[in-house]
């Protein structure tokens, strides 16, 4: 009992710089070992990165804990919900945090785990006009020092619905902000992660969203009396895949996956990549696509210079880059070639579109009929009010 009481009050102080010294008291020794082993070139750079996590639920909270333990520089946390007992089948939150906002409860736990991380808590709904403005402003806040339109290095979407994903997509397209999408199916047995680089890859509105087919027939799925199921395992796996991809992207090691699915019933991991849709309904996406095409000559020159530099130091190429175990069922070259020469909507096995495309629709020419009805907004409001009070 005294031991438990005592351990609850121990707090480590902040560190000035990450040390590679292998002693019991150094929280970063095993992480800095990645650098010594040659996996990561400069692990200390992790302290320079800011990551925004939208949705602090079963995936987002675990992703936040992983990044905190990795020593990320700054975390911005967004959610409008409070902790409930019904969340206890998932990881991270504790029963004594019931009633707290998820973002405040997360800050409480994360600041105990690692006081070096700068934590920002935003308890708001990003889908409303007001919430969205605050969301955008908070992402931009440190942009001046970075010289970019956004003040964060990566946005992680860990929300549980299509509406909120579309809002993250909107914000990231407007800010030209690279982000990663994650999701777990409502039947809790499959999930996915996806990298979205505005203008370069498909945005979330470019094509109907993808889901990993669980193989369970939708018609046999019993939905009476339930909305969604959840498992800490599937969510933990997806959070792990998401943060692994984030670390590879930020610290520049290994290959960053453009899309990775997870079917837990078959332990199948479909991979693919998607090009942007020139007819995307999102105007900010079209603007980013245009900029990406305009920047092609500069990009080519940079790639050529890098290639030349690499060929002169061939012997120093990074280790462990080959996948000798062939864990991924579809390797990248296969995923790429499978998308060439097929219809643009051809998908790898095991992936399906969750929603249909909007029907082709021509705006009808303005007819005399519509002008007969009033075009005055206040008059229309009065008409509805009259109906409402009768």
């Amino acid at each position, binding site marked *: 009992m005294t031991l438990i009481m005592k351990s609850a009050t121990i707090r480590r102080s902040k560190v000035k710089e990450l040390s590679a010294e292998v002693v019991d008291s150094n929280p970063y020794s095993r992480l800095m070992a990645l650098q010594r082993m040659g996996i990561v070139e400069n692990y200390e750079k992790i302290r320079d990165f800011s990551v925004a996590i939208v949705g602090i639920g079963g995936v987002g909270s675990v992703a936040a804990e992983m990044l905190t333990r990795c020593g990320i520089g700054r975390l911005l946390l967004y959610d*409008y*919900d409070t902790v*409930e007992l019904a969340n206890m089948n998932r990881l991270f939150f504790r029963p004594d945090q019931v009633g707290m906002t998820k973002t405040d409860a997360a800050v409480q736990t994360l600041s105990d785990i690692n006081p070096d991380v700068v934590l920002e808590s935003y308890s708001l*709904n990003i*889908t*409303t*006009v007001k919430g*969205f403005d605050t969301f955008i402003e908070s992402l931009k806040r440190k942009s001046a020092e970075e010289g970019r339109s956004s003040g964060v290095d990566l946005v992680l979407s860990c929300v549980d*619905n*299509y*509406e909120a994903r*579309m*809002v993250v*997509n*909107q914000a990231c397209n407007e800010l030209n902000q690279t982000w990663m999408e994650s999701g777990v199916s409502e039947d809790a047995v499959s999930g996915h992660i996806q990298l979205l680089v505005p203008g370069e890859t498909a945005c979330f*509105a470019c094509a*109907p969203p993808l889901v990993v087919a669980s193989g369970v027939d*939708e018609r046999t799925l019993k*939905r009476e*009396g*339930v*909305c*969604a199921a959840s498992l800490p395992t599937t969510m933990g796996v997806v959070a792990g895949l998401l943060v692994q991809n984030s670390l590879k992207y930020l610290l520049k090691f290994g290959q960053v996956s453009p899309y990775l699915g997870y079917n837990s019933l078959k332990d199948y991991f479909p991979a693919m990549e998607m090009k942007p849709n020139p007819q995307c*309904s*999102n105007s900010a996406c079209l603007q980013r696509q245009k900029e990406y095409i305009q920047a092609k000559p500069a990009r080519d020159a940079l790639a050529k210079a890098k290639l030349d530099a690499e060929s002169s130091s061939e012997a120093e190429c990074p280790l462990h880059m080959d996948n000798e175990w062939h864990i991924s069922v579809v390797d990248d070259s296969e995923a790429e070639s499978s998308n060439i020469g097929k219809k643009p909507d051809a998908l790898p096995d095991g992936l399906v579109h*969750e*929603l*249909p*495309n*909007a*029907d082709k*629709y021509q*705006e*009808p020419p303005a007819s005399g009929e519509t002008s007969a*009805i009033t*075009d005055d*907004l206040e008059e*229309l*409001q009065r*008409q*509805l*009010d009259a*109906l*409402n009070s*009768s």
Partner: protein
Amino acid sequence: MEGWDPSTKSALTQIPLLTTRAGPRDGGPWTQRLKEEYRALIAYTSMNKSNDNDWFRISAANPEGTRWEGTCWYVHNLRRYEFQLQFDIPVTYPATAPEIELPQLDGKTHKMYRGGKICLTVHFKPLWAKNCPRFGIAHALCLGLAPWLAAEVPILVDSGMVKHKDDEATSAES
């Protein structure tokens, strides 16, 4: 329209379609869209009244028309059960539908997401996506809320989770 009952289908086809693709951050085009929303709501409400199937009241709660509040009701065993109704127009509207909330029922049924947002059928979102931007608030109420009330209110009442307001008053007195 597979998976929808005949009365929902017939009501849906009579609600005027919208044409302007604009959300609450789009300025002038949003005002145009708002006019179309009113026309559709006026037509749907009038239709319900003339069919003796009046079942909701809704009006904008702010001048921008981004927040809507009202009530909806459902008659079960000849008794009327009424609930507060509210939703915000999302910034990505009309690509995404408004998430309809019944705050008084939050926590009383599994067919609800956090915050009292109703859990729609698997048929709703595909139909909304297919018809973007032609469906508006009136269509969301017709396709989303009406079938939800018809399916869930009887269960909530029969299980005792929801009490009629007359019964609540007597039990409070005793």
